[in-house]
């Protein structure tokens, strides 16, 4: 199929535009998303096309706007609530955790909440501790939420379109460093179901699982390792809930070595849970301990060098892959 090179933010806009055109129930609310087009220009042009009824600026009131989105979804609409930073979503946690996530069970399975919260996280350029977090583990922990973390323009588009067609509350977590990145996006209808991972690079020696902005970093590490004669398979789960366990386990059975990379701090993270799934399902097929490369257990500092030191870098991924192959120890012994 034909494809184009477009930016992540343009891919997201295409998804919103196409779904808004197809379904009158889809509407967007958020801070500065209408005339301004959003801080990352994702919603640019949508106000002119769909009007002020379906593209609305809100006051700075995250708990209120998330709650209003959840209520609209319960009433059967398809609201997209854009929260500027995932850090700000903490103001609306009651609405996410106690309302959106629980409504289906509390109604005996009948009540659905097709609510999409689009937001972005991660470190990037010294925006400091309250604008840099990777908080996916908080949402991952709560039964009832879908957690989506696209790393490429194509995935961003396909997953957002799917989010606007399925029935559960979705935490759609973008990354501030990815909006300007480019990649191929298929022409025409492009929808990606949740729970289907993607092998971003095939390999045979070590499986590396990474998502969001850790994916491009991991791919660069894989290139570096290839030059050293190490073949890395890179898997992007794309959605953390539901998680494509099958793809992960299949790859692990092939390579017998796993590294999991997350930008979020290590303690209580998604990587730890994926590691526990792997050891439970494939312990006897592993040739090395599961390696986790994660952020430090400390708030993200402002200073750029320290910010970089607080989250995994390319060399950290390379080192972890080599550790899982016992190469670091061997080269040390050789010295």
């Amino acid at each position, binding site marked *: 199929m034909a494809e184009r090179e477009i930016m992540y933010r343009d891919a997201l806009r295409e998804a919103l535009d196409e779904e808004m055109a197809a379904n*009158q129930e889809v509407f967007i*609310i958020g801070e500065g998303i209408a005339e301004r087009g959003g801080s990352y220009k994702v919603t640019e042009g949508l106000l002119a096309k769909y009007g002020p009824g379906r593209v609305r600026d809100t006051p700075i009131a995250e708990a*209120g706007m998330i709650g*209003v989105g959840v209520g609209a979804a*319960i*009433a059967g609409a398809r609201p997209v609530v854009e929260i500027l930073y995932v850090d700000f979503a903490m103001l609306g946690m009651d609405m996410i955790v106690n309302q959106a996530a629980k409504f289906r069970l509390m*109604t*005996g399975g*009948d*009540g659905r909440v097709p609510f999409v919260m689009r937001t972005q996280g991660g470190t990037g350029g010294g925006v400091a501790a309250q604008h840099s977090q990777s908080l996916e583990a908080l949402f991952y922990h709560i039964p009832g939420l879908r957690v989506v973390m696209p790393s490429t323009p194509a995935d961003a588009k396909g997953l957002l379109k799917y989010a606007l067609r399925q029935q559960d509350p979705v935490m759609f977590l973008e990354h501030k460093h990815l909006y300007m990145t480019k990649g191929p996006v298929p022409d025409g209808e492009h929808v990606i179901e949740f729970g289907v991972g993607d092998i971003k690079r095939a390999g045979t020696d070590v499986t590396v699982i990474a998502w969001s902005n850790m994916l491009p970093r991991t791919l660069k590490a894989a290139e570096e390792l290839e030059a050293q004669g190490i073949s890395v398979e890179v898997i992007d789960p794309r959605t953390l809930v539901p998680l494509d366990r099958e793809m992960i386990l299949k790859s692990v059975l092939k390579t017998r070595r796993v590294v999991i990379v997350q930008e979020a701090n290590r303690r209580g993270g998604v990587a730890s849970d994926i590691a526990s799934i792997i050891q439970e399902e494939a312990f006897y097929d592993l040739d090395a301990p599961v390696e986790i490369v994660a952020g430090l257990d400390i708030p993200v500092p402002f200073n750029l060098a320290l910010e970089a030191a607080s989250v995994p870098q390319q060399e950290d991924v390379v080192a972890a892959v080599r550790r899982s192959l016992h190469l670091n120890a061997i080269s040390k012994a050789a010295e």
Partner: protein
Amino acid sequence: MTFSRNEGETENLSVLGREMSARASKKNAYSQEFLEKIFRTAFKIRTFETEGIKLYRQGLIRGYFHPYLGQEGIATGVCAALKEGDYIASTHRGHGHCIAWGADVNKMVAELLQKDTGYCRGYGGSMHIADISVGNLGANGIVGAGTPLGVGAALAAQVRGSDAVTVTFTTDGASNNGTFLESLNLAAIWNLNFILVIENNQYAVSTRIEESTRETDLYKRGTAIGVESHQVDGNDPLAVYEMTLKAAETCRAGKGPVLIEAKTFRHMGHHVNDPGKYMPEDKLAYYMARDPVDRARASLREMADVDDATIAAIEAEIAEEFEKAVEFSKQSGEVTAEEFRAFAATY
């Protein structure tokens, strides 16, 4: 703690509230059919709560049970003024709203008895009964949460171009929560068809309203952000009906939202196991003398000249309906652990 403001408490209302009280007391203003409907609703709620408490004491109902006793006039009056296609969102004290909205008592009792035939198949319980198929967004275990959810339904209606009105029942306790302001303000800037009904029963669990806020006339909070706001005697179902009817008209004319503070008082503590010893006796007596169910009965008797025998027959019919619901529930099964695990797998 002495109670100093009881004299005239439900008479000393905002201007429109007094007007509504006057309108509601006019003979010949309502049909017999309407007055009977009002009484039936109020009495059905009363029966559900009093009989439900008995089931609770017998150990048949577990968990939390927050009785609506004493506040029946509000749900009764509000819901009578709404139309098919409208929405309601309720509170932790939500049985009355469900019943006034026309819920099936069989399914309500079955839910409280944890049965598969209940509204939520026993997954929700007293604080989570919802029926989105008829616009009931549900009770809520988080105080104040119904306000943003209700505004959301009103927003969905506006996006669809529907003239549906959404009512959120909330409480004096919830009015100090941040989402109270955030969501009412959103409703205001978007002119939503939204009515926020504050059931001011004057206690947040056991904390008196005077301890929670300096301005105890809660309707003034709406005025402060440009929302048309009124106060009504919550123990007068007909006054509440009139006020809601007017508020709904205002909304459907594109001039919403509207805030209504309904003054009322609980007949007992916060939940079944709270004796409510902190509630002053003189104040309780004041409100007991203005019992909303008695007032609905008196309206039917005096305004429509319905005799006592007819009223007694209505009461017997409602009592029987509840007994049948208990039988139905006792004979119903429960969701099995196997079914539950299959449901869990979809998460």
